[in-house]
């Protein structure tokens, strides 16, 4: 895959705009824009990870919010128990370098089990079963009263990153942005690798892939696990951003919104997920400011996007 010069221009401009966001927010006197920017970066990571499944491998998972939520709760639960632990564990349980990798590994490990089950089905059943399993995790966290149940779990302070003050929202925004850039570069690399080529082949023609001697299952499962792990990272950032994890993060509407972000950005376009996520985050903020019944506007927009806009934002911005 090679980006066209127009696409490179769009990317450079977008990232420059993002990098300059704290100054812009300061200039217009809207510091809340920084948080909105962080949120866009976090959702972009989650959407990009889902695009690896939906867009590249052709597996429309309707349960991706589960991994986002599990990543968030991994960080939240470890911090919750930090006080009860003796040294050095009490310190490690709030360190980003120790906890964030766990927020990747826990969802990835669970995804290996759930994915192995879900991948026994395909098509519509796959959509239904991923939704159902994600809802299972949702009910689990609602029932876990120790960790707040319905009300969610508050994170007393952000995970410790050396050199960054825990309450510095601008610094945390750059952490999110850096994570987004790293994830996108990683996914781009994976897409162009032998592994990515196989995923492409499975999406386009699974029957042919089998007929040339490839068993698709391990590759699909690997994509499922990788995708869940990256979503877990997004969850770790999310819980740090708002210092709060709630079952809403695992709710099926979140899975639906992630799917919308991917399609809105341009299915399978890698970079598109970022634009889809940003558009949804901004749309939410704008509509919510305008009316409490913002979903009545969002719903028809979704229907229109699906029926009319086939190429997605990346296709419109970057040309094809």
């Amino acid at each position, binding site marked *: 895959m090679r980006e066209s010069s127009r696409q490179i221009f769009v990317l450079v401009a977008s990232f420059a705009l993002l990098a300059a966001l704290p100054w812009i927010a300061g200039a217009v006197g809207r510091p809340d824009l920084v948080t909105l920017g962080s949120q866009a970066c976090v959702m972009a990571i989650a959407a990009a990870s889902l695009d690896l499944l939906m867009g590249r491998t052709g597996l429309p998972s309707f349960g991706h919010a589960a991994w986002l939520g599990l990543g968030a709760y991994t960080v939240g639960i470890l911090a919750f128990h930090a006080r009860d632990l003796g040294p050095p564990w009490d310190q490690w349980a709030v360190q980003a370098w120790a906890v964030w990798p766990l927020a990747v590994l826990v969802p990835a490990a669970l995804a290996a089990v759930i994915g192995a089950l879900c991948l*026994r089905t395909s098509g519509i059943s796959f959509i239904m079963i991923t*939704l159902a*399993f994600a809802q*299972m995790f949702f009910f689990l966290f609602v*029932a876990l009263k120790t960790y707040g*149940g319905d009300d969610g779990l508050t994170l007393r302070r952000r995970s410790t990153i050396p050199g960054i003050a825990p309450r510095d929202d601008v610094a945390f925004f750059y952490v999110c942005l850096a994570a987004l850039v790293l994830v996108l570069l990683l996914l781009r690399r994976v897409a162009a690798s032998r592994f990515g080529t196989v995923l492409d082949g499975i999406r386009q023609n699974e029957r042919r892939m089998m007929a040339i001697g490839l068993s698709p299952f391990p590759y699909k499962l690997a994509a499922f696990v990788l995708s869940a792990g990256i979503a877990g990272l997004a969850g770790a950032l999310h819980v740090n951003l708002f210092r709060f994890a709630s079952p809403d993060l695992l709710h099926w509407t979140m899975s639906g919104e992630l799917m919308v972000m991917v399609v809105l950005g341009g299915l399978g376009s890698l970079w598109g997920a970022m634009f889809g996520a940003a558009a949804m985050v901004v749309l939410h903020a704008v509509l919510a400011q305008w009316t409490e019944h913002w979903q*009545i506007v969002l*719903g028809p*927009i979704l229907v229109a996007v699906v029926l009319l806009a086939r190429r997605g934002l990346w296709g419109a911005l970057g040309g094809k």
Partner: protein
Amino acid sequence: MTLLLEQLLNGLQFGVMLFLMAAGLTLVFGIMGLINLAHGSLYMIGAYAAAWATLQTGSFLLGLLAGLSAAAVLGMALEAAILRRLYARDHLDQVLATFGVILFCNEAVAMIFGRQPLMAGPPPWLSGAVEIVPGVPYPVYRLAIIATGLLVAAGLYVLISRTRIGMLVRAGATHRELVGALGVRIGLLYTAVFGLGALLAGLAGALTGPLLAVQVGMGERILITTFVVIVIGGLGSIRGALAGAMLVGMVDTLTRGFLPATLRAVLPASEADALGAGLSSMAVFILMAIVLLWRPRGLFPAHA
């Protein structure tokens, strides 16, 4: 023993409701190849229309009629306006567009009726309880639901296996092109099938309303359980929908009924209740996982 019998009947009643939902969803999938997330919204609309009309008129039967017609009419309007454009699209587009429909319906209902749940209990002539066996009283209304649901299931069976419409439906499920070639006006057939599915969802909503709080979000909760039913039963199969619905209805009801009490034997009461509630919500999903390990295409796959 008394409790067990009562819970078994509750399980049967929930299973019957799930069947009404699953039958519509699986018919629409089997014939039109459409996955319709908004099926839960039709259930919700049926429940709201019925509760509202019951409260306005004081008549349960008028309420039921309102619930059925609201769901069927809105369902067919939805099919004509949006969903028929999705038949030829891939499942992902169908999921996303009907997801948009859900958001719209939920918010519209919240704007019209508010966020407070509507409560309309069963009518006086269906209230109270009868002793099904000596010493075991059971609510009449739930018995009425079970009877209605079983009657509908029998009616569906006759419709699909014995009538000309049913023949078209069965043919449509396996040979979509063939039905077109027979000169049947396929658009009309599709709208009718969709209307039937919507009617069943509306019936489920209207009947369930008096048992639960009628509120926004009730549709999705049952929709996801219905998905579990369909995955277990086998996509596109009415027989599978019936078997899956009964299985899920029983497992869900029995675990909810007995698990917390069982856990109390080993855990402090409050923890046992919370954990029991959590594990019971997960029970049907675990059931689904087990069935999938054993039979990836469900118990009664439609196209063997």
